Each structure stands twice: as C-alpha cells, then as structure tokens.
C-alpha cells in the first residue's frame, strides 16, 4: 500500500464526514445549528485542502488552507456576534 493510496482514502473519508454534516445544514431546527454545521464543514475543508495538495504532489498548496482557516474563523465569529446582539457594531454598555 503506497502512501498516495493512504492520502486518497483519507480524502474520501473526510468527504464522507462532510456529507454527513450537510444533513444538519439542510434541516437544522435553528439558525445557529446551520451556522455550527457550516463552521465545522469549513474546518474539515481546511484539512481536505492539505490532503489534496499532497495527493497531487504539490505540497506548497499549504498556503491556501492557512488563508482559508483564517477567513472561516472570522466569518463564524461575525455571524455569531450578529445573532447575539442584533447588529454588528454595537459597543458594550
């Protein structure tokens, strides 16, 4: 079993877990359920991008998951703050 087969199996299993999480995106009862599921999918995609970079033998693609992790983190925080306070830039009282 070569190492590329291991990378392919890991990528396929990560994709299966992403598809299992998509269930909660489609029928989450609340908005926060959908937001949690999209955040989880985003952090899974970060690892999937690393796997794809090694699978195509271009490991310098690691820069793209670094950027995507930061963007996903900021997006989750902003939407959670908006749901919590009702508007974005209301200061603490």
């Amino acid at each position: 079993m070569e190492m590329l087969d291991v990378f392919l199996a890991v990528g396929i299993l990560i994709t299966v877990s992403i598809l299992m999480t998509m269930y909660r995106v489609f029928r989450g009862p609340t908005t926060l359920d959908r937001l949690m599921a999209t955040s989880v999918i985003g952090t899974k995609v970060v690892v999937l991008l690393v796997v794809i970079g090694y699978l195509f033998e271009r490991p310098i693609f690691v820069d793209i998951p670094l950027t995507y992790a930061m963007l996903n983190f900021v997006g989750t925080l902003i939407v959670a703050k908006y749901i919590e306070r009702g508007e974005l830039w209301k200061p603490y009282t």
Partner: protein
Amino acid sequence: MEALHVVSALLMFSGVFFMIAGALGIIRFPDFYTRLHAAGKCDTLGEVLIILGFMVYEGFSFLSVKLLFLSFFILLANPVGTHALIRAAYLTGVKMWKKEESQ
C-alpha cells in the same frame, strides 16, 4: 513502506475516525448544546491528528513548520468559535433538551 510512513498513516486514520465520530454526533444528538459539544472537541482533535500525520510524513522542513502553524491556529481558533456560538445561543434563549419533552 518505511516505519515513519506507517506511523503517519496510523495518525491520519485515527484522525479520520475522530472526524466521523464527530459527524455522527452532529447528526444524532438531540440538542444544540450537545451537538456543539460533539462538534467542538472531535473536530479539533481529528484535524490536529491528520495534520500531525502530514508533519511526520514530511520530516523536518519549511513545509512542516507551515503545517505546525496551521495546527496551532486550528487549536486556537476552534474553541473560540465554539465559545462564541454557544454564548450567542445561550443569550438568545435556545431551549435546552429535557428527557420528558421527547416522550
């Protein structure tokens, strides 16, 4: 296969196991808070284990330092996101699950 490749493959498959267990928890748990409990911990551990497997496969180079930064950022950012989500849910009054309601 060399010994280090076996070690990295074991690390990656254990990480995949944790990720699939977290996805099962996200599907099956009855409440938002318990679902977030499954999502936060299982995902963080699974991703860090997979990236650790890639670091073992890569050896000591510039790329493994980048992967170390990525795993450090995931370890820092994932609990912060979980905390923000659960604070928003608690302050906007998402109901908690009780056993009598389900019957």
